[in-house]
């Protein structure tokens, strides 16, 4: 595997990535590598599937540093200052940057070299400019999907309308237990609460089995109404699994096998001809395949005024 190295001098205050020619070149190279690697079909390990061991509390603990990271990488030193911060940074880089990209740094205490490896490439342009709104939401969804309440490593398939999440036939047939969908914005201003939302997938709603038994972040917490077991905002069922129940959190279940256009509550009405999922559109969702621009994609329903999230990651486990 070729590795593109972006050296970040920890001892130096570093501005936004992409502000130098060198960094621009690295970004171009990494984009090329993404295509090469994708053609190799060696993607599932890092681009389609991921494992989840991120302790949920670390998201909250490290929020300040992450929030700063999105605006100014100088505060990466905050994350590097602690082991937990370094671990979280590993997840962020894995979610945001493509395979073949490596961020290198040094531990500020020991001086040991640190490497942060790209994986999914959900916000590749973060290498070149500040993380945009769409990128924030993709990285957020990825982080949330990888949280595990039990601190164990459960293999998951992450699916959504992004080329970094495209599935293979093997993945579709091997990971069939639909856990739920994750979305929101981890990078909200510090004056606002973290926006982390999950809706319950069809198989999670049917009861835990197989790989779902140690996956609880899309499961409602009976002791904390409105929240999931991981403390996320519980949006309800992603789809109307048991008609005539009509409420569902997501507008549609894509033909590609993931939930799309979701809200923070069961805001959508009864679906038509949905087979117990949600409306099943044959279009290419919102055309969001890696158009990593600044389009907010944060539509507001004329009915409710609630935000609709299009950067949604649906997770599946093995039976």
């Amino acid at each position, binding site marked *: 595997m070729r590795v593109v190295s972006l050296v970040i001098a920890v001892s130096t205050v570093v501005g936004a990535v992409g502000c130098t020619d060198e960094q621009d070149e690295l970004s171009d190279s990494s984009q090329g590598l993404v295509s090469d690697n994708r053609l190799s079909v060696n993607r599932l390990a*890092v681009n389609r599937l991921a*494992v989840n061991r991120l302790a949920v509390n670390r998201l909250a603990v490290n929020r300040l540093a992450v929030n700063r990271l999105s605006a100014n990488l100088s505060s990466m030193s905050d994350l590097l200052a602690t082991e937990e911060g*370094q671990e979280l940074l*590993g997840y962020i880089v894995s979610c945001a940057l493509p395979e073949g990209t490596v961020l290198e740094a040094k531990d500020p205490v*020991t001086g040991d070299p*640190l490497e942060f*490896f790209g994986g999914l490439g959900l916000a590749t342009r973060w290498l070149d400019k500040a993380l945009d709104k769409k990128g924030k939401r993709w990285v957020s969804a990825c982080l949330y999907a990888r949280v595990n309440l*039990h*601190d164990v490593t459960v293999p998951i398939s992450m699916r959504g309308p992004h080329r970094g999440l495209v599935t293979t036939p093997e993945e579709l047939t091997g990971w069939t237990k639909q856990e739920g969908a994750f979305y929101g914005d981890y990078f909200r201003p510090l004056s606002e609460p973290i926006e982390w939302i999950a809706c319950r997938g069809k198989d999670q709603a049917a009861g835990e089995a197989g790989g779902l038994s*140690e996956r609880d972040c899309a499961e409602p917490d009976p002791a904390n109404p409105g929240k999931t077991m991981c403390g996320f905002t519980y949006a309800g069922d992603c789809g109307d699994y048991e008609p005539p129940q009509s409420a569902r959190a997501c507008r549609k279940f894509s033909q590609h096998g993931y939930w799309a256009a979701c809200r923070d509550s069961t805001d959508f009405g009864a679906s038509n001809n949905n087979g117990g999922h949600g409306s099943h559109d044959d279009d290419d969702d919102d055309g969001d395949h890696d158009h990593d621009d600044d389009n907010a994609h944060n539509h507001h329903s004329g009915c409710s005024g609630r935000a609709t999230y299009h950067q949604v990651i649906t997770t599946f486990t093995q039976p």
Partner: protein
Amino acid sequence: MRSALVSLLVLIGCGQPQPTGTDGSLGGDGMPGDDADVPTVDSPPNAACPNWCVENLAGVTSLLYGVAAVSPSEAFVVGDGGVILHRRDNAWTRMTSGTTQHLRGVWAASPTDVWAVGHAGTILRYNGTSWSAVTGVTTSDCVAVWGSGPSDVWVASSGRANHWNGSQWTYNSVTGTLLGLSGTGANDVWLATENGYLKHYTGTTWGTVMPAGGGAQTFAVLALPGVVWTGNITPGSETLRYNGTAWTPHGTSSTIFQSYFGTEANNVWAAGSAKVGHWTGTTWEITVPAGNTNNLWGVSGSGRDVYVVGSGGTILHHN
């Protein structure tokens, strides 16, 4: 003294009388020193469950994550809530761990020198009589422990590989979420990580090893003389075997192993999801032991005896 450690005792229903005395296996009164002579005789075949015996301890339903066998008939198990279980004399007992933290790793230098590690910097050491806390090493979550001897012990915690040389602790910073430890000697130690590929220590520093055909998620690792096993999530190459020259993928029919155990190249056991794998030189034989439906997290053994532990208090014994 031993009785003070035992809070719950259940005889193994399907067990057979334990060989004692002259053959060097366990026996005696359980006092420190009796265990020093590690038996090498396998447990006798069990007609009641000739393949896998379920040895769950009544009243223990915790997630059991790690197991270390010190002889064919003796093993230590750790898990959620500070649970430590001890098998000897054909019975599992619950030991007093002195902690309620989730424990994630256990390794035994001998029956009278056992290490267990877990959340919030928990490091425990058993001297054959009782467990005591080892403090001042780290406050981060510890996930694995392995050593080549009593004076060469590694503890993997968030972002760190901590080393005990018999008199003091030192550490190296290691990126990635650390998942597993294994080695063949003081200068050949391997770390499995999430987001960081494999890490290899050769005597001075930890370097990154990227197995061909694998991704940044390596789940578990087993190092044997001349052979290294690790795993990822790519269909058809869920395990990767290094023979000292090259990595070779070996499929497992989509089973993702969380733990490996072996003492020789062509007799390797692995556990993951609800299944157990056995490598005898050419392919993985995958089985669902004793109708198990729980996720399995740890495997260890001695001689012909193999122990597997998992969620829901699952303890499986093969002999």
